[in-house]
């Protein structure tokens, strides 16, 4: 029954210390958070670690959540931050050269679900982007962060973020036009 309750109820109880309610949140939002982390991190096996750490942090910091109904977007922020922490620990400084050289092609997330060809094209185009472009796009368009927040997560200026986003969008649009 608790598993069918809305976010406000479930998160409210988790804030009060109800572990069963927290477990409902874990079940409800693990796929969403894994999907987002995977887009931020790119290829690699860190996704599980990052998302689990994000949930542990979320438990500790749940009392900071002012509006229990907003737990979904709050969790996205927590995992986005964890994913970028992981990115920074791999490679502390954004490599400027990489901004202009495309990343070696690697496969995007495994496609076990049939979707429209256009969506697949977007998925593939994203996966091709150099890491800084991809991350700026993912943080902004999937994570919903403001330019300033993206800048803060990536450790670069907001103007640089705008430039990265413009390049990312151009690349995606051009590739998708080619595939039409």
């Amino acid at each position, binding site marked *: 029954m*608790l598993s069918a309750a809305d976010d406000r109820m479930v998160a409210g109880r988790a804030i009060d210390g109800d*572990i*069963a309610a927290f*477990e409902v949140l874990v079940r409800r939002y693990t796929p969403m958070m894994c999907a987002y982390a995977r887009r931020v991190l790119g290829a690699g096996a860190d996704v599980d670690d990052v998302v689990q750490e994000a949930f542990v942090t979320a438990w500790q910091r749940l009392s900071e959540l002012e509006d229990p109904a907003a737990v979904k977007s709050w969790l996205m922020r927590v995992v986005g931050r964890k994913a970028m922490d992981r990115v920074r620990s791999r490679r502390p400084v954004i490599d400027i050269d990489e901004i202009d050289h495309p990343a070696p092609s690697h496969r995007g997330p495994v496609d076990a679900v049939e979707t429209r060809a256009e969506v697949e094209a977007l998925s593939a185009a994203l996966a091709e982007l150099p890491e800084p472009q991809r991350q700026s796009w993912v943080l902004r368009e999937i994570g919903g962060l403001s330019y300033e927040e993206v800048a803060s997560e990536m450790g670069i200026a907001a103007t640089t973020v705008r430039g990265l986003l413009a390049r990312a969008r151009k690349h995606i649009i051009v590739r998708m036009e080619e595939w039409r």
Partner: protein
Amino acid sequence: MSGLAATIEATALETPGVVGLYRAGSTVVKIISAATDRLAPEEDTVSRVVVTETDEGAEVELAIAVGSSLGAVEIAQAVRDRVRELFAADGRSVFIRLTVVHVTGDR
């Protein structure tokens, strides 16, 4: 874990109504089933009872989970009395700091 702490643990667990012992910073190792509301205590060899010995006597700190058929007040008092008896047998006094951290659902 010291022999004394182990004895205190056993004494507490034997008290009617006590269903588990916890230590500070306990993590949840077993999944909580909301339906049965069972909370499985962490299994390890680190003592869940903290005993501090001084010249005047001892101080014992423990955290317990209780069932709901008896009152938490009565159960806590019973644990306290049993632990005091343990020390009184040696002619020693003891200060007991006991915290009930969980009351299970109806059984």
